[in-house]
């Protein structure tokens, strides 16, 4: 990384941030109770970010050779030379910084596992079957990562972590399914049996569904479905989304954007947090950032560029964003503060309504107004007098995301981590009740 920073400066860049991440991953996929493939990766990925007078450029180089990186940097600098200056001048965070390691984010046993992955997947499948599932599909992933960062502004650090994540979907029949999830940074916090049992139990409860009705409902949302929503909500809270005009949080700092029951945090310092880490890719120390405090929007997630543009303070959120190949603020470890209700009490609070456990395919009509729809997936239930009355299918949530946030009326005490295919950024959150949720369905 030293070489990359020096080379960037030699090329004439005013500032340079260089990072390299090595990640080793294994992924066991299974379907219909049979392993379909085991995949393994060993990748070293340097990234570089260069700044000159109101000009920026970045690259993501999946090639660990210094020659390849130098070639890319040369092209980047040439591109900076011919582009017009951007809107604002930004500078990298001034180091050096002292990075406090986050506790409990590395477990040396996880990267060594190969045969054990089969045992863990089998344990989850057996637990699903014990709850009544007839078949299960899913994925078990282990990851070990090391990241080094070095900037011309004096930041320099090394960090490492591990995680293990199981997502299992159990079926009783084609229309009756449930999902369970367990993710952790240490083996002692990982529970495939519980995830399998959860999937099997929901699938079993979801047997013999009938088509649900359109209307407005008081809905008890399970953690998986709200995790998918909060992945998006936290993304809307990045200055990057605001900048692109793809956020309903634009010009809302200091305003009430949600129910007072909602406090939303991006906590990169959480001990044992799935994506917890010590510094971002501009070398700035990570922190616990309260995005929404009891309903009020406190800050966007920032990089040095967005702070220069919008004001506010750095949040240690600058990372390379997939698809943009350049540093931008992102949410990494999303946490929703708990409420006061036990699970049974939450059902009582609903009285008559719906209990929705999972969803997929959320799409927005308009990112600034937040009008959207999303399809219910896996167990969905009508609740009558605080108890599950019947399994329903064919439902779509058709509503407005800011309205959903304003209408959260109760949260559970218990929380869990959710991370799966539709929830790439992990979320630690409770069950929650939302009032007057719009539900539609196809009728022909």
């Amino acid at each position: 990384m030293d070489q990359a920073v020096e080379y960037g400066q030699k090329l004439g860049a005013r500032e340079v941030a260089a990072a390299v991440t090595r990640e080793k991953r294994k992924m066991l996929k299974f379907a219909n109770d049979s392993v379909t493939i085991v995949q393994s990766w060993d990748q070293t990925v340097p990234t570089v970010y260069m700044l000159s007078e109101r000009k920026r450029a970045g690259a993501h180089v999946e090639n660990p050779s210094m020659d390849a990186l130098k070639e890319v940097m040369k092209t980047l600098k040439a591109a900076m030379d011919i582009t017009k200056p951007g809107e604002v001048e930004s500078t990298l965070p001034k180091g050096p910084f002292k990075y406090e390691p986050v506790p409990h984010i590395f477990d040396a046993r996880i990267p060594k596992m190969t045969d054990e992955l089969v045992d863990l997947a089998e344990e989850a499948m057996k637990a699903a079957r014990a709850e009544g599932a007839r078949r299960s599909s899913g994925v078990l992933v282990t990851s070990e990562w090391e990241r080094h960062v070095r900037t011309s502004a004096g930041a320099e650090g090394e960090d490492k972590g591990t995680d293990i994540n199981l997502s299992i979907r159990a079926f009783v029949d084609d229309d009756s399914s449930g999902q369970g999830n367990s993710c952790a940074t240490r083996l002692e916090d990982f529970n495939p049996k519980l995830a399998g049992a959860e999937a099997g139990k929901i699938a079993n409860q979801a047997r013999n569904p009938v088509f649900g009705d359109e209307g407005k409902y008081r809905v008890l949302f399970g953690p998986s479905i709200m995790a998918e929503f909060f992945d998006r909500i936290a993304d809307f809270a990045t200055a990057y989304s605001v900048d692109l005009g793809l956020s309903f949080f634009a010009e809302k700092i200091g305003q009430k954007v949600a129910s007072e029951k909602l406090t939303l945090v991006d906590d990169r310092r959480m001990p044992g947090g799935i994506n917890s880490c010590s510094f971002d890719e501009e070398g700035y120390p990570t922190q616990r950032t309260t995005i929404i405090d009891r309903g009020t929007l406190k800050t966007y997630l920032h990089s040095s560029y967005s702070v220069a543009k919008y004001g506010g303070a750095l949040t240690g959120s600058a990372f390379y964003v997939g698809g943009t190949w350049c540093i931008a603020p992102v949410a990494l470890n999303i946490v929703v503060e708990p409420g006061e209700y036990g699970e049974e009490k939450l059902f009582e609070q609903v009285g008559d309504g719906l209990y929705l456990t999972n969803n997929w395919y959320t799409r927005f009509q308009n990112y600034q107004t937040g009008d959207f729809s999303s399809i219910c997936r896996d167990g969905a239930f009508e609740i009558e007098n605080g108890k599950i009355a019947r399994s329903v299918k064919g439902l779509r949530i058709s509503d407005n995301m800011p309205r959903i946030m304003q209408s959260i009326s109760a949260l559970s005490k218990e929380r869990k981590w959710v991370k799966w295919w539709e929830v790439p950024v992990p979320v630690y959150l409770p069950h929650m009740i939302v009032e007057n949720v719009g539900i539609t369905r196809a009728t022909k």
Partner: protein
Amino acid sequence: MEDLVQHAIEAASAKGVQYAEARLHTDSGSGVTLTNGKPEPVQLAKAKGIAVRVLVDGALGFASTNDLSKESLDETVNIAYRTAKASKRLVTKPIRLSKEKAEHANWETKARKPLLDVTIEEKLAVLEEIEKNLSPSVVKVDLPSRTLVLIDDITDRYFADTEGSKIHGVASRIGLLFVFTASEPGKGIIQRIGQKGETGGWERLEAWDLPKCVPEEARILGKILREAKQAPRGELDLVLGSEVTGIACHESCGHPQEADRILGREAAQAGESYLKPDMIGHRIGTEAVTVVDDPTVPNSYGFYEYDEEGVRAGRRTLIKNGVIAGFLQNRETAAELGVSSNGAARAVSYDREPIIRMANTFMLPGEYNDDELVEDLSKGVFIKTFMEWNIDDRRYNQRYVGLEAYLIENGQITNAVRNPILEITTPGFYGSVDAVGKKVEYEAATCGKGEPEQAAPVWHGGPPIRLRKVRLGG
């Protein structure tokens, strides 16, 4: 580089695998962006790496690395072999691959002006030219947020397997993404996210006439804001533009006819299908409906000549005259279903396994002129383009929310209407089509599937179509 691939194949063979393949990718891409007229950071991406997939006693192992030393390659092969072997205990249904012809081929997308010869300056100049035409005085609407992104990539792939295939392919792709927010005092805001994309050289982009066609998209947003009235609800007739026909063909025909979904392999991620393996011959739509997927459409965004299992690509018919005609197959599903692969295995990069994907999915044209599609309708709605859409994970219950849409009254297209919502089942959709237009148009898109996620370039399209007696909600 061919030596590295051959080395991997030989190393895998020496371990006694049933089958092995290796792919070496060298990919490069760039992105230039203007947001509200200001340049965003120029972005470059480079990737070079190798993937090895082995079949060991009915178990599949895959490993990839971007460390291309011989030692690393040996370890990569070793990991693929070792993990496959370890998983065998829990492979209750041993995996087989269909028998296919070994191919030797060299293919490349044609480019009159290669993308490598185009400077960043030229790319930015294109965006600035579009930007000039986005001023309120030109498009007659205020665009408080506008982003233009020009992306290009070149992917060079060499594939070989233990059955003797050796295939070298190079594809260059160019694309434009635009995101507009239009605002009109007292009328609210609307957004349009649009994409263009083709394979080939810079000449493909020049043919799009971007300084004219992209601002036209913005002008329409202003028209919608100023003129559109509430869309009617209830049962009526509908005409869908090519863009809406295309997304429906992709979502509710292409996806459910991916054989890996039908067999449950993607159940925990992208989901399964309402179709079963024995439903070839099942009627799903009217005689008017024929849908195909074809990777060989020249210059298409989803173009390829050979798939990532070395199988030659060709057109596959998914629905023929309303009847399920075939599924998208790779070698694994083909073996299980007792057919041949139709070359649908794609991997977007060196670190992804090949899985079944669409390429270019579209409805074939019928015999109706645009006027003829509306002239018989006393009351209906024409939905030309869409914004929000989604479909359940069995591909049965879908929704499209119209963006540019008009009322049809007494055989004439009249005033604009806002946010018509079609929520309909798959047989409800294809079973309501009674007329199909003559002119096929395509849209570029990026389709997501697989774990890890693979975002594949595709086209979807078709002609305008007419649906009778469907319910508009919202």
